[in-house]
């Protein structure tokens, strides 16, 4: 029983095919992370799953699925005064103590009366998460939730997501381009570049040649020295090039 499933999902922006026949699904309680370089269609995939962007193919949602969506950012018009409490009450109102408890849970207690416009990037992300969680979602969908956070903030945020999943059993689908931190928190990683290059458990994906071809070895530290990148071909006929890291190749051959 999957919560949300895409079959043959294709998204075009003008003449550009951003996503080409993607098949994927998320099961209850699962943390799935989509990684991929800039322009690989990560955000388009999320938006297509949410029904925010026109797409071809089929998206099936479980009946009555409640989605908690945490967008990349919130562009707040300065003419709109908005305290955190009023924001958390959209679209459904919640009791004040429920709101206070949720703000405490996501690590920003006592912010209820502050203006959303005055929050720091990290506080805003947690408030967005609180709003999503207050709707008691079956699945959380997060689009690059840690953009603009430093490494400490990033790690803390992903730990929080893991904890919340453990407590509530909510499924999580998130997009990221920062690899390390995300990897450790995920059950499954989907490596995307216009199509699904590879997917599986984090350590499997990390060692997959497709993943290495996309991200090079730079982030792997010393390990990179022992590994050799092979060219790989996709048999699905998707025309794109993976860039390879020239300096790393040199190091490998020097050994």
């Amino acid at each position: 029983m999957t919560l949300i499933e895409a079959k043959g999902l294709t998204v075009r922006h003008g003449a550009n095919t951003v996503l080409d026949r993607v098949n994927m699904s998320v099961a209850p309680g699962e943390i799935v992370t989509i990684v991929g370089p800039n322009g690989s269609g990560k955000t388009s995939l999320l938006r297509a799953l949410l029904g925010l962007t026109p797409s071809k193919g089929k998206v099936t949602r479980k009946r009555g699925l409640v989605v908690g969506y945490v967008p990349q950012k919130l562009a707040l018009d300065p003419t709109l005064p908005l305290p955190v409490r009023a924001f958390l009450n959209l679209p459904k109102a919640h009791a004040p103590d429920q709101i206070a408890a949720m703000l405490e849970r996501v690590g920003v207690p006592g912010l209820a009366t502050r203006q959303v416009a005055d929050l720091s990037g990290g506080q805003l992300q947690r408030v967005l998460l609180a709003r999503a969680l207050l709707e008691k979602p079956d699945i959380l969908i997060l689009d690059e939730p840690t953009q603009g956070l430093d490494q400490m903030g990033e790690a803390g945020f992903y730990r929080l997501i893991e904890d919340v999943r453990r407590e509530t059993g909510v499924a999580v689908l998130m997009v990221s381009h920062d690899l390390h931190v995300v990897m450790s928190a995920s059950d499954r990683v989907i490596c995307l570049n216009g199509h699904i290059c590879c997917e599986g458990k984090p350590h499997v994906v990390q060692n997959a040649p497709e993943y290495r071809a996309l991200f090079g070895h730079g982030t792997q530290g010393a390990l990179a020295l022992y590994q050799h990148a092979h060219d790989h071909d996709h048999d699905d006929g998707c025309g794109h090039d993976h860039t390879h890291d020239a300096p790393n190749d040199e190091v490998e051959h020097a050994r």
Partner: protein
Amino acid sequence: MLDDFLVRAVLAGVGLSIATGPLGAFVVWRRLAYFGDATAHAAILGVALALIFSLPISLGTLLVALAMAGAISWMMAQGQSPDSGLGVLSFGALATGLVAISFVPDVRVDLSAYLFGDILTVTRSDLLLIWGGAGLVAAVIAWRWSKLLLSTLSPDLAAASGVKPNRESLVITVAIALVVAVSLKVVGALLVSAMLIIPATAARRVSSSPVQMVVASVLVSWAASGAGLWASLRLDTPAGPSIIVAAALIFVLTTGYRTIRNQSV
């Protein structure tokens, strides 16, 4: 009591404010100021058509305002830059209306009453129309409040929560057309959007939540209506523009208050 023209004028201003307060806040939040202007300008064309076809004026203005709002929404949905297109539609409709009125046979039309309003000649049936239309707009906004607000804040968040942002936009669009139609008599086609924008902008300076801003916006509109009418009687100035001048003065006051308060913090 309703026999007194002044009482009727006050009631017209108070009734209209019930709609322009909350709707004006959404117009400001959604940056629809020019949209409101264009819809109001089109109302003059509606007046002309109503006179030519002997329809009730408010029906003519409502239909043309709705058509205009629909045309602009369609244009924006096509992804065209609204700015220049709005200008073409807005002034095209206004000028066409002014030309068309000159063709109306056997009628000496007092054009300034439609351009600047004529609140002192509001009749009982006008009052009924104003209160009915304004009450309807206010009730719809209250009923759909959180959906409207969430769609305004972020169409994506709204859609993810199962709210249809396009439907909420349509609600605002129709509400603007309705308010234009009922407020023509009060402030006139050229100043209708001033009644939407100025009180809401003045209210922004003293509000820290959306509900506060809506309430403050209604209060500012009431104060402006009262002060404008009073000035109009005392100084023998045109009533509609006087109301807008009063609103603009209140805007200056709240802006000054905000500036002083911010400096003292």
